[in-house]
């Protein structure tokens, strides 16, 4: 059975990263407590007008559940590509600087060439998306 006391000594990985989880849980709990206590200090007096969505005082028109413009998705797609690239770059950067790897003949040159190729492909993709007008918002 997992209890808080033996979870800390469970396996090395959990032991290593559990404190961050502990921290996050305590942080979430703290914020939740503040927000739960707050209404106890001041009781709300809701009225019809107060509960309407705020639109500068005029009666609400239509719904707020609008469709998101398709161009936003194009930029989000671009972000996904580059974010995955960065996950790869983190590992590459660490491997490049690792002392043992530097002694392997041809390792640095090879990883440099691979990375340049990879980045050029991505930048060409970015250029293509630009030429297609994904970043033109006029």
């Amino acid at each position, binding site marked *: 059975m997992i209890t808080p006391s033996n979870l800390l000594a469970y396996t090395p990985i959990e032991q290593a990263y559990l404190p961050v989880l*502990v921290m996050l849980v305590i942080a979430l709990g703290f914020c939740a407590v503040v*927000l739960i206590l707050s209404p106890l200090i001041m009781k709300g007096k809701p009225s019809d007008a107060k509960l309407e969505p705020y639109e500068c005082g005029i009666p609400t028109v239509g719904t707020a559940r609008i469709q998101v413009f398709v161009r936003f998705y194009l*930029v989000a797609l671009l972000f996904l590509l580059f974010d995955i690239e960065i996950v790869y770059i983190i590992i590459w950067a660490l491997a490049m600087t690792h002392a043992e790897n530097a002694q392997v003949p041809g390792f640095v040159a090879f990883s440099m060439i691979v990375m340049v190729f990879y980045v050029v492909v991505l930048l060409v993709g970015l250029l293509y998306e630009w030429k297609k007008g994904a970043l033109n918002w006029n």
Partner: protein
Amino acid sequence: MVRDFTDIFGSTWLAAAASVAVIMAFLSVNSLMLIWMERKVSARMQRRLGPTEHGPFGLLQTFCDAIKLLGKELITPRHASTKLYLAAPILIFAPIIAICSLFPVSGNWVFRDYDIALVLVLAFTSMSILGIFAAGWGSNNKYSLLGAIRSILQNIAYEVPLLLSVMAVVLLAGSLNLRDIAMQQSGIPYVLLQPLAALIFFVAATAETNRAPFDIPEAESELIGGFHTEYSGMRFGMFFFAEYSSMVIVCGLATILFLGGWHGPVLPGIVWFFIKVYALIFVMMWFRWTFPRLRFDQLLKFSWLVLVPLAVLNLLATALVLKLL
């Protein structure tokens, strides 16, 4: 070797409790002081006096504001998605506490010393996007949704150059451990070796915190309050605290990555760390009264067509120079 609070206290739970107490005390006082500082700086730059009434130099003004905020009525709009609406302030604020626990303020002054602290910090920073979208969608208000969409798009657009510029530092330091990175700058801070990366990082960080000139997500004249239009009382207070705390976080990260963390002559390390952080925050406030607000398409183009290619080239150049020398 004593590396962090966990070693000092001998127990993860004790260290976590102590860290949360210290961080919360610091963040709440710090946010109030930063709001005061923002008002004073703005006022002085416009040849006004700013707050003067409460306490010396009006220092207690924001404390009074916070107490007033506590007493404000909490309203949940009728058509809001209640769960998302209530979860949003927590989702935005909680990661900030977790991030603060990873910052080495001085030597072994850190909750827990991680080898991948940098990745953890960057991962937690992106968590705020979830909170922003929960707030925008949950409020069921047009201004909130528009503000949230703009905010998310801006955040993801500027996250790429931010991460790329950080990677140049990782190449130099050969480590993702924030303490190691700061340790290696005891001689020369990385801002001298990586001026371009430092510049890109700071511009992207300003955009990530939604500060002027990148403040269209909450452009008051168009979108009222942006994604937190519908929030009141302490729920709004959470967003406000989160905004100023995230300034401390990006400036703290910039201090560790580029300005050598706690290294400096004469004064103790922790003092140097906060001097650097607050100097950077002052520069951010200075930006606000120097640059006009960018239009949305200009903002996206600037990120994708200027910052991203520059950061990529800087990264490759760094790798080449490092390996050839």
